[in-house]
């Protein structure tokens, strides 16, 4: 089962506890919700299907054709679901 790290263009890290994803191909930074970060980290380490993103408890790799970059597709799903935003769009106060 392909993991996110295979052929990955998008990489995840923690910044002061907050999950951020960096798309190295587009050079864009994204902030992930806690739920999205948990899903990502489970997906990255999984050895079996987790389910559809729309049903968080169930997640599959149906769209992953084997080649290409699963991480980019996962990030796109997270953005569509409102579970990740581009860092430029975040409403921040310092």
């Amino acid at each position, binding site marked *: 089962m392909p993991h996110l790290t295979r052929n*990955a263009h998008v*990489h995840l*890290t*923690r*910044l*002061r506890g*907050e999950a*951020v994803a*960096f798309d*190295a191909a587009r*050079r864009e*930074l994204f*902030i992930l919700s806690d739920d999205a970060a948990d899903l990502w980290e489970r997906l990255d380490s999984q050895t079996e299907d987790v389910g559809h993103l729309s049903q968080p408890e169930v997640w599959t790799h149906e769209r992953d054709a084997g080649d290409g970059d699963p991480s980019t597709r996962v990030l796109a799903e997270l953005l569509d679901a409102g579970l990740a935003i581009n*860092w430029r769009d*975040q409403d*921040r106060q*310092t």
Partner: protein
Amino acid sequence: MTTYAALDHGFTIDCDHDVLAEWLQLLLRPLQAGTEAKAVQHYALITQVGTMPTVCQLRIDGETAWQGSDPGQLVTRLVGDINRRAAERTIHHPVLHAAACSSSAGTLVLPGPKNAGKSTLVLGLALHGFEYLTDELVAIDGQRVRPYPRCVSLDPGSWPLFDGWLLPTPTSVAAFVTDLRFVDAAQTAPITLPPREVAAIVCPRYQPGACTELHAVDPVDGLAALLGSSFTLDRNPQRDLDQLAGLLEYAESFELIVGNLDEACAVMRQHFGDHQPPSSR
């Protein structure tokens, strides 16, 4: 022959012009390596190719890397190649296009693109009591910065600001370096403190005439600035992302609007430590 080290880029150099060769020793003095250093590259500056007095070359390991009829480009080409290979050969750390200096508060990293004012600002800070680490490449080693204290290179617009500090450039040498002048900031503001952890990321934005101000920004803005300045991101994106985010666990992020250099230095001293500036020459 003297071996020099620009981060992990070791090199030697020779030149067919005696006065230029002597001046290059001054220019490269801060990069002199210890006896254990291993030179990988050999640069040769040829100021006269055959019978063509105005054709000069930069050769690297015997191969012609550049040849031109404008001798004023010769030193610029050399300095550019040293920087480029320093970034390429330093493979064990994230390398940023940034300046850096140290104060009692810790190390300050100043990332920014070309013409952001990094060199001018870090030199101004060095002359206001901060210790000089680099004006060009920051190699992140955990929570610290590896020094790369090359002579600060200045564009013509900045020369009047540092008139008393510029490396003397004899007339015969000026012909080979028409668009840059240099300051040996490592001699003026040497590193005397033990290596300090990175305390702040400060992104300079030079806006002539603007009100000079320093304001805090979100850590994610700091991370975006560091990622945007990375030379090594394509080689090792996960490593760079992890290490730069790790840096920001403790370092705060700022933007510095620089309307005036003296004001910017005063603001930085107020915020990050107060030192006695070195006496002028």
